[in-house]
C-alpha cells in the first residue's frame, strides 16, 4: 500500500513538472499574446494543481491547504487570462497566423457606432 502511494505521488510530481515545462516552452515558442496565454495561463495552472495534489498526498496535514489552493487556481486562473486577453484585444494587439477572427467584425461595428454617436452630438 505504502509503495502504491509513493508511486502515485511520484507520478503526480513528474506529470505536474512536465506540464509546467510545457507551459514555459509554449510561452517561448508560440507566436503572439493570445496563444502564449493558452500555454502560460492554462497548462501551467494544470501543472501547479498536480504538484499541489502531490504535496497533499505526501503530507496529509496540508490536505486542506492543497484543496483550497487548487480551487483558487481553477477559479481565478481563467479570470486572469481572460482579463489579459481582453485587454490585449482592446489595445489592438494583432493576432498572428490567425485563420479566422469573428470578433473583428463586431469591433468594427462598435467603432462605427461610436463614431456615429460622436458626430451626431
Amino acid at each position, binding site marked *: 500500500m505504502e509503495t502504491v502511494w509513493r508511486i502515485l505521488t511520484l507520478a503526480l510530481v513528474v506529470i505536474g513538472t*512536465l*506540464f509546467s515545462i*510545457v507551459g514555459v*516552452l*509554449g510561452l517561448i*515558442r*508560440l*507566436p*503572439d499574446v*493570445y*496563444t502564449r*496565454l*493558452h*500555454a502560460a*495561463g*492554462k*497548462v501551467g495552472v*494544470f501543472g501547479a494543481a498536480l504538484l499541489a495534489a502531490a504535496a497533499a498526498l505526501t503530507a496529509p*496535514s*496540508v*490536505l*486542506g*491547504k492543497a*484543496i*483550497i489552493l487548487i480551487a483558487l487556481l*481553477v*477559479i481565478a*486562473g*481563467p*479570470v486572469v*487570462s*481572460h482579463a489579459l*486577453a*481582453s485587454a490585449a*484585444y482592446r489595445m489592438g494587439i494583432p*493576432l*498572428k*497566423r*490567425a*485563420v*479566422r*477572427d*469573428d*470578433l*473583428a467584425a*463586431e469591433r468594427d461595428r462598435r467603432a462605427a457606432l461610436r463614431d456615429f454617436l460622436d458626430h451626431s452630438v
Partner: protein
Amino acid sequence: MLAYLRLTLICWLIYLAITANLEVANLVVGLLIGLAIALILKPMSQALSLRRLPGALFNLAKYAIWLSIDIIRNGIRVARIVLDPKLPIRPGIIAIQAGMKSELGVALSAHAITVTPGEQVVEIGDDGVMYTHCLDAIASAEGAEEAQRKRRAMLESIFE
C-alpha cells in the same frame, strides 16, 4: 440574517482548512474573521431550498468531474501542439452562442471554456455571444455548438 450565517460558516471552514489547527484559540479567531468578512461583504439573502440541495451538489460533483476530464484531455492536446517541432497551430477567434439568459449562466459558461487549455473567451457580446480564442480554431469550431449544449444542460441542472 441566514445569508450572513451561511457566509460566516463557509469562511470559517475555509480558514480552518487553510490553517489546519483545531485549538480553541484558532477556532475563535477563524469565527471572528468569518464574521468580519460577512459583515463587510453584506451578502444578499437568496432562496436556498434544502430539498433541492443534495441534487444540486450531486450535479455539481458531476460537472466538476466532467470539467476535469475535459481539462486533462485538452491539456494533453495542447502539450502535443507545443512539443511538436512544426508547431501545428491554427489560431483564431470564433463566436460561440451561450444560449443562456442569466448573466451567471453566461459567466460560468465562459469560465468553463476558459479553464480548458486551448480555448479562452476574449470578449462577451451584449447578446451572450462568447468570442473565444482557440489554438486550433478549425477543430474547436466544429465541436463548439455540441460542447456548449452539454455545458448548458449541466449548468442548468445545478442552478434550476
